[in-house]
């Protein structure tokens, strides 16, 4: 086990890279469309399209989305490295969740905040950017950290499109050494602390948010 461990480190770096790049992209997409969703009316075309998109993402397994990205992108004429295909697939999946997360946290901000910024003479965009979003992002952080751990786990599925990340590398090593279970357990022991750390961070963020909001309530 000890001798194959160094050979699993570069693939581990690929796993981390692919998950965090997708998390970053999905966060931005989710924030943008989530806030658009909150501003616009319910029957606005943008609103309907994003809801349809979220529905598609939540109702299909991620492996189908990965296959779809892998098989459909070349059909449209976009030929990318398999790493970037993986990034696109994971971003597609995660953006659906991020839109929901940001929509929920923006609509959880108190109505009084909007009214206060209106009386200060701000229009809807500047009140969104300067008043609402800074507060909403703070509330989004725990769910986003959970999403990070979800993405690290999901990145193992990218092995089906032959991206050399941790799981694929372990499968390849299995073919060389025929030590099936040892390699899988070793790999599980690499995933476990990373995922547990991210969900631990999510818990801490959640608790900090809660204690802050109770403090504000006490002051009131």
């Amino acid at each position, binding site marked *: 086990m000890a001798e194959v461990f160094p050979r699993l480190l570069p693939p581990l770096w690929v796993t981390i890279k692919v998950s965090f790049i997708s998390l970053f992209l999905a966060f931005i997409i989710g924030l943008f469309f989530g806030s658009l969703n909150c501003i616009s009316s319910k029957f606005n075309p943008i609103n309907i399209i994003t809801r349809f998109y979220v529905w598609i993402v939540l109702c*299909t397994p991620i492996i189908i989305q990965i296959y779809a990205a892998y*098989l459909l992108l070349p059909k449209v004429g976009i030929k990318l490295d398999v790493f970037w295909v993986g990034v696109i697939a994971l971003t597609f999946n995660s953006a659906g969740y991020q839109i929901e997360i940001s929509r929920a946290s923006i609509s959880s901000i108190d109505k009084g905040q909007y009214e206060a910024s209106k009386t200060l003479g701000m229009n809807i965009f500047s009140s969104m950017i300067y008043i609402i979003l800074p507060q909403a992002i703070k509330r989004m952080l725990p769910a986003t950290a959970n999403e990070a751990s979800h993405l690290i786990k999901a990145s193992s599925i990218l092995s089906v499109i032959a991206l050399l990340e941790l799981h694929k590398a372990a499968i390849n090593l299995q073919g060389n050494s025929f030590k099936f279970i040892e390699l899988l357990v070793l790999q599980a022991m690499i995933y476990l602390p990373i995922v547990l750390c991210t969900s631990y961070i999510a818990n801490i963020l959640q608790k900090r948010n809660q204690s802050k909001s109770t403090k504000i309530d006490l002051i009131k």
Partner: protein
Amino acid sequence: MLDTEFMLYILPRVLKASLVTLEISFLSLLFSIILGLLFSLIALSSGKIINIIIRCFVEFTRGVPQLVQISIIYFALPYWGIYFNEFWTGVVALSFIGAGYTIEIFRNAVLTLDKGQQEAGKILGMNKYQILIYLLYPQIIKRSLPPITNELINVVKASALLSVISVNEITKIMNDVIFEYFVVIEVLLEATVMYLIIISVLISISRYFEKRLVV
């Protein structure tokens, strides 16, 4: 634009595969409910060490990617001398994954019940197993229905991963058909629509439970 004739031609295969998906999901959910009830009972009624062991199991099923767990079980079962076909290996893997979640669902449901219930049971002279089985568990069945249907949705999604150990469910059949006929868009669309139908129905059932059954 779309080759509808071909889509109709492969429809029976996809429908058969979605039956396998449903079968495997319901069987694994059933087994994981049984495991969850059993282990949550053990966790609630025993001391620290057993609780830590169960906690470790739960953290393992949550912290390790499902694909890795499926491959571990796929290789570990024959290693221990247990030979199943792919279908039952898949059921074992998904029940193992699901059990981690159902244990927590049942345990949390019991812990959110009022403390007075336990005290009342104690006064009636029940021991801790009687309190759990006759007094507390009957009350949590209603409460845990919405999270259990959510868990069923997760199991259906996870069953797509069983294509890597060649269980004949929707994703595997989709792959087979794509590489048999080299038709991509039609087949992908059909598989996606199948999943959309199954999961949307399950989601509306879980919403119904959440509205009607919240105590």
